[in-house]
Each structure stands twice: as structure tokens, then as C-alpha cells.
């Protein structure tokens, strides 16, 4: 009897753990460990949110994956004093945000306003969970929003999400190195030298030869991805069938050339080595200093990625003022944040007003881009704002009207000093109208991510090209059971 009880209780524990873990994020545990320590569950609970709502105010729940929109939320409270914006930030490094958001769909926990990143905005726009915001289109036309800002948020003629940014891509290069290897650092002349992909490859060889292999043309193969993906002519999924555009083949070919010829530093995008290259602190395993000539980054890459990383942590080396920006070999766009209203919200009117304020309000967009939202400004509205919360000047906004008005103000700004006097805003303004998002689909992100591992194996030489495609198709099948894969 005792044995039976023991067996039974063990089975209970076992089935309980299995049952519980099938739903929650599972944990590895050779012993009885509650699923509470699952890493994906941690961030939301631990991240600071604004304190409980003040009495007598209407609460608006806003969810996002960076702290950017909190600035908008505080600014919104200034014009709408009776509103309390409760801001929840959940990172999306490994898809935590998407998972959390998905889990609230159809429940009471659903937020009122959601931020949607380029990687998954389409799957929400294509779903039935976002409210119709088409009636704001006249406003968008009035502000001459770049088409891609609302095209992405539109499906079957119904617009459900708007963006406050436009995100054309660019090529950033080091002025001092350009002078050394090409005899000029002038953006116009450099654009002529790096104007298409063949020229870019040829220039990579020049950089390698003249630097004796100490300077790499790019830091990682990840830099190339968006560039080529944005220039495809067919989307990934055509009539429910997985489709490979010739541009994708061209991408594979190009990254292979870069790897095999040592034009690429073998860093991983968003990892230490990749950032180290931005401030000249990159060292190989023997301790030799290595340099990176250029980075493919979009509009937001300048204020959020390149500028913050241009000085090394110990302050010993800096590249501030040594950068310039050009269109580069191919025009492209990368990323962007869209805002939508959940259909199930109880604050529909207020939520719509919030989206309008963030994305289609000329004054707010101007303030956003020109650095009006300093920490002091935000603290004056809500003293609980964190000390590092502010919006630096230079984010590229989605309204052509605003862009035209403020471009000149960047002629002598911090950002143009960073770029050796170049006004990047003007360059982005020229590139923005060419950006289109026709090809964007909800499944893009997963399909593209699935290619990373097989592609890296191919670059390492551990699999052949054919094996790479097979591995990729297996991985895609894994996540899209319904897709037809030739």
C-alpha cells in the first residue's frame, strides 16, 4: 500500500509538472522546481511600470517593447490632464513581448494601445484583434505621411495601425578610414564609389588590401540581411507557398563572398564584437586592434545604436565625428514601430486619441524629433519619470510636412557634429519616399530568422548550399505547419 501511494504521488507530481508546463513556459528541472523561474516569465513582472493610477483619472494601458513610447505617454498626459497612461514595457529580445501580448488576446488583460514592431505588425494587422482606424486617413494625408507608414498598417483597404517614424536605411562609414583607403571622405564621392553591390564588393577588397587585413568592410553578415530582403520582388509567401526571390540567392552569394575573402569581421549583430567595432575597441583573439569600415543601419540606428556606442565603455576610444552617412549600394528600409488600438478595449475613444497624438499630431511629431522632450520637460509633467527617460533629437518622423519644416534645424545639431557636419535628416528625407512595404507579411520575421542558422553553417562550410536550403525549409515547416513548402 505504501508503495502504491508513493508511486501515485510521484505520478501526480510528474503529471502536474507536465500539465502545468505544457501551458506555461517550461523549465528544465531534474527535481521539483516550480515553473515560476522560467526566464520568459521574468521580465514583465520585474520591469518598472508607472505607479498605480491617480484617483479620478481615466486609465489608458499602453504596452510596448522599448521605453520610447513612455515619453509620448507622458507628453500625452500634459495635453490630457485627466488621463493616466499606464505604461508596460516587455522586451522582445527572444519574443517575450509577442508571447505576452498574444496570451492576452481575448481576455480582460488586453491592453488598450499596443506598439507593434515591423517583425510582427503584419500578423496583427491581418488578424481581427485590432480596431479599424481608417477614419484617421485624412489626417495622414494632411500631414503627408510617407506611404509606408500607413501601408503596413493596412489590409484589404482598412487601416489599423500608424507609425510615427519612417525608417529608410542607410550606410554609415568611417570618414578617417575612407580618406585613407579611397582618398576622400565626401559623402557624394563615396556614394559614387559604393553605389551598387558590385562596387561595394570591389571596395571591400580595396579596404582589405590597403589595411593589410586590419579593417573589415562590415562587422557581421547580419548587416546585409535587411538590405537584400527589402529589395525582393516577391514576398516570402505567394499563394500559401514558400517562395525564394532571386534577391535572397544574391544575398547568400554576397555574404559568402564576404566571409570567404575575409571582408567580414565574423561578429554577431547586436553582440559585443559588433558594438565594439563602432568605437574602435575591437580586438581579435591575439589582441590586435581591428577596425570596421561601414555599418548598414536605418534612421533609428543613428540615435539609438551608433551614437550611444561610438565611445567605448572606458572612454578610451571614440569615433564621434568620424562618421558619414550615404544611401549605400541599395535603398532599403528596416524596422519601425506602429501603434494600434485593440478591438476589445474599453477605452476605444481615448485609445484612438492616443494613437492620433503619437503618430498624426504635427506638434507632437515636431517635439519628438527636435529634442523638446527632455528629462526635465517630462519630470515637470510627471515627477515619477525615470531619470534616463528622454527623447534625443534626431529620430526620423513619418510626416513629410514635419520633416520639411525641421530638416534645416539639424544643420548644426549634436547629430550633425557626430557625422562630421553632415545633416543626416536631409539624406533620409531624400530616401524616405522610395521606401515601400508592399512585400511585408506577418510570417517574414520567423522565415528570415529560420535562415540564420543554416546560412551560418553554410558560411562555416559545414553544410553545402543545397543542404542549407533543406535545413531552412525544415525549420520553416516547424513553425508554419500549414505552409506549402516546395
Amino acid at each position, binding site marked *: 500500500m505504501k508503495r502504491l501511494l*508513493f508511486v501515485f504521488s*510521484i*505520478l*501526480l*507530481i*510528474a*503529471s*502536474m509538472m*507536465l*500539465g502545468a508546463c*505544457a*501551458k506555461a*513556459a*517550461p*523549465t*528544465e*528541472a*531534474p*527535481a*521539483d*522546481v516550480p515553473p515560476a*523561474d522560467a*526566464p520568459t516569465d*521574468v521580465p514583465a513582472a520585474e520591469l518598472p511600470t508607472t505607479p498605480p493610477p491617480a484617483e479620478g483619472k481615466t486609465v489608458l494601458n499602453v504596452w510596448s517593447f522599448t521605453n520610447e513610447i513612455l515619453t509620448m505617454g507622458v507628453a500625452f498626459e500634459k495635453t490630457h490632464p485627466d488621463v493616466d497612461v499606464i505604461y508596460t514595457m516587455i522586451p522582445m529580445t*527572444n519574443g517575450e513581448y509577442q*508571447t505576452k501580448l*498574444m496570451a492576452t*488576446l481575448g481576455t480582460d488583460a488586453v491592453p488598450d494601445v499596443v506598439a507593434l514592431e515591423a517583425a510582427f505588425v503584419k*500578423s*496583427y494587422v*491581418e*488578424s*481581427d484583434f485590432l480596431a479599424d482606424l481608417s477614419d484617421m486617413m485624412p489626417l495622414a494625408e494632411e500631414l503627408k505621411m510617407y506611404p509606408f507608414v500607413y501601408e503596413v498598417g493596412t489590409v484589404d483597404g482598412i487601416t489599423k495601425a500608424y507609425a510615427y517614424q519612417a525608417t529608410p536605411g542607410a550606410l554609415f562609414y568611417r570618414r578617417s578610414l575612407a580618406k585613407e583607403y579611397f582618398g576622400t571622405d565626401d559623402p557624394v564621392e563615396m556614394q559614387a564609389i559604393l553605389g551598387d553591390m558590385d562596387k561595394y564588393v570591389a571596395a571591400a577588397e580595396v579596404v582589405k588590401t590597403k589595411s593589410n587585413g586590419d579593417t573589415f568592410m562590415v562587422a557581421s553578415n547580419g548587416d546585409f540581411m535587411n538590405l537584400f530582403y527589402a529589395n525582393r520582388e516577391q514576398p516570402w509567401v505567394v499563394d500559401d507557398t514558400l517562395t525564394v526571390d532571386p534577391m535572397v540567392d544574391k544575398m547568400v552569394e554576397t555574404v559568402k563572398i564576404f566571409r570567404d575573402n575575409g571582408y567580414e569581421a*565574423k*561578429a*554577431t549583430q547586436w*553582440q*559585443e*564584437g559588433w558594438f565594439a567595432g563602432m568605437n574602435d575597441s*575591437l*580586438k*581579435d*583573439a*591575439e*589582441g590586435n586592434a581591428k577596425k570596421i569600415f561601414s555599418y548598414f543601419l536605418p534612421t533609428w540606428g543613428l540615435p539609438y545604436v551608433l551614437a550611444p556606442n561610438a565611445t567605448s565603455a572606458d572612454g578610451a576610444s571614440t569615433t564621434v565625428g568620424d562618421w558619414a552617412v550615404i544611401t549605400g549600394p541599395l535603398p532599403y528600409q528596416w524596422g519601425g514601430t506602429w501603434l494600434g488600438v485593440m478591438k476589445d478595449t474599453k477605452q476605444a475613444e481615448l485609445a484612438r486619441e492616443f494613437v492620433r497624438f503619437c503618430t498624426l499630431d504635427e506638434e507632437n511629431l515636431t517635439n519628438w524629433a527636435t529634442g523638446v522632450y527632455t528629462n526635465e520637460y517630462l519630470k515637470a509633467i510627471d515627477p515619477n519619470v525615470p531619470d534616463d527617460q528622454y527623447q534625443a533629437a534626431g529620430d526620423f518622423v513619418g510626416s513629410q510636412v514635419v520633416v520639411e519644416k525641421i530638416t534645416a534645424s539639424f544643420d548644426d545639431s549634436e547629430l550633425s557634429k557626430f557625422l562630421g557636419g553632415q545633416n543626416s535628416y536631409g539624406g533620409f528625407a531624400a530616401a524616405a519616399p522610395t521606401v515601400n512595404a508592399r512585400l511585408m507579411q*506577418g510570417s517574414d*520575421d520567423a522565415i528570415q*530568422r529560420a535562415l*540564420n*542558422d543554416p546560412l*551560418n553553417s553554410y558560411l562555416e562550410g*559545414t553544410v553545402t548550399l543545397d543542404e542549407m536550403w533543406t*535545413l531552412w525549409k*525544415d*525549420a520553416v*515547416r*516547424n*513553425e*508554419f*505547419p500549414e505552409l506549402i513548402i516546395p
Partner: protein
Amino acid sequence: MMRSNYRKNYYGYLFIAPFVIGFLVFGLYPLYNTIALSFTNTTMMKADGAFVGLQNFERLFADKTFFTAITNTWSLWLMNFIPQLGIALLLSVWFTNTRLRIKGGGIWRMLFYMPNLLMPSAIAALYFSLFSYYGPVNQFMVRADLLPEAVDFIRSPDVMRGLVVFIQWWMWFGQTTILIMAGMTSISVSVYEAAIIDGASIWQMFRYVTLPLIKPVMIFILVTSLVGGMQMFDIPFLLTDGRGSPANSILTSNIMMYMRFRSSQGHIGAASAVGVVVFIMTSFVALLIFYLLREKSDKKVKEVRS
């Protein structure tokens, strides 16, 4: 008499009620729901899902990657569990041995257990940075002439598999040691005294006294570790790209389940199918362990009596 008996039972039920309710709500219902979902094509982005019969399972068993995941899960678990049990047994014998009298047992126990308290995400991030291409391991190895040039460890299936096994071992051997030690210290000293009087060697005492008496603890460790091992998720998930890279070498069945769940549509039907297969597999092996390690003495006792 009748009355008092009734009362006793009534309070008994009251006392077990919290567990039973908790189990029904958080154990049985999710289990039932998972099984029910596995026969549908439900996604998170669609409000309704349709019954599709065994389609999810057919797709699963037609998928080579799924078998890779199952094999990985088993090999990663066995490779960390066998050394884990060995080391734990050895340490337990040392620390409970009355002749060795190792000092500071409590401190050692705490040190062994410490890695278990660290957050898996922190450990994964730490090891990822250590072994990255521009990381300290490469710098040290190359400068000490142990490697001719930097190696991309993160892209090497063998290294990453070894790392997962090592981290799992390192995080859990303390736990196992503590359990075995608890089992060993509960054995009455008089049994050992009797063995010593009978002239048993240390090995004989271990083999014929300790091992049989800690069998219930061993079964517990084996089963809980099996259940945990079959659900291995956090370290392999966080160590690389969350997709079992490089070359699916650390793709476990639970990572596969999670990938289906977090795909852009949130295929919970297909994800549940993976969960159900893992559940059936784990239950079967757990029952097999009970069967193989069952007490055979009951039968003998009966024979003697009859």
C-alpha cells in the same frame, strides 16, 4: 464510535482539499486542455479552431526535426544525468562517512547547491559571452597558445552541446547530492555497526547496505530528473538563438513546442501535440522505472509466510 469515525474523515478531506483543488485547477485541467487542443488547429491569432483529428500528430511524425529534437533531449539529459548521479553518490558517501569526518559539511553542501540558485538566463548569458568569437575564452586560449586561432565556439555543435550538458550538470548535481545525503543520513547507524561487526568492507557496506536502503530516494531522483530532463528548455533556449542553433544541435522537444507556440500565428494546437507526445513518452518511461525498480521483497515475504 461511528460518529467519531465520520468526523475524522471529514477533517481529513478538509486538510487535503487545498492540494486536490490546486491539482485539479493547475494540474489536471491544463493537462486535459492540452490534450484537447492537440486535436485542433487552434491559433492565438484566430478566435476559433477546428477539430482536425490526428493531423497535428501526423505532421509531427513526418517531421525529421522532431526526431532530432527527441534524440537531443534524451542525449542531453543522459549525458548530464549519469555523471550527475555518479558525482552525487561519491560526494554523499564522503560526506556521510563517519570515518572520514569531513569538516564544514554544511558549507560544502551550500556551495554545491549554489549554482542552482542562479537564474538560468544569467547563466546562459554568461556562458554565451564567455564563448563568443570575440569573447574571453578565445582570447585566453589563443594568447596562451592553446589554440592556433580564434574558434567560433557558438557555431560549433559539439561545443554547444557540451556546454549545455556541463551547465545542466553543474546546476543540478548539488540538488541530487543533497537528496542522496538525506537518504543516507536517515539510515540507522546500528545497521552499519552490525555490518562492521560482521566484517564488511566499505565497498560492501555501500553495495549491500546503503544502496538498497536509499532506493526510494533514487527512484525519486530518477523520476523527477527524467521529468525535468524531458522538459529541458531554459538553458538551450537562452544559450544561442532560441531555435536550437547551431545546426539544431541543442534543439530540445520543449524548444520545438515553444517555437510553434510563439510563431507569428501562435499555433497552440500544433504546440500541444508536441506536449502530448512528450507527456506520453515521459509517463511511459517513468512507469517503466517503477516497474524495474519495484520492491521484490513483498513476494518473498509472502512465500516465507505461506
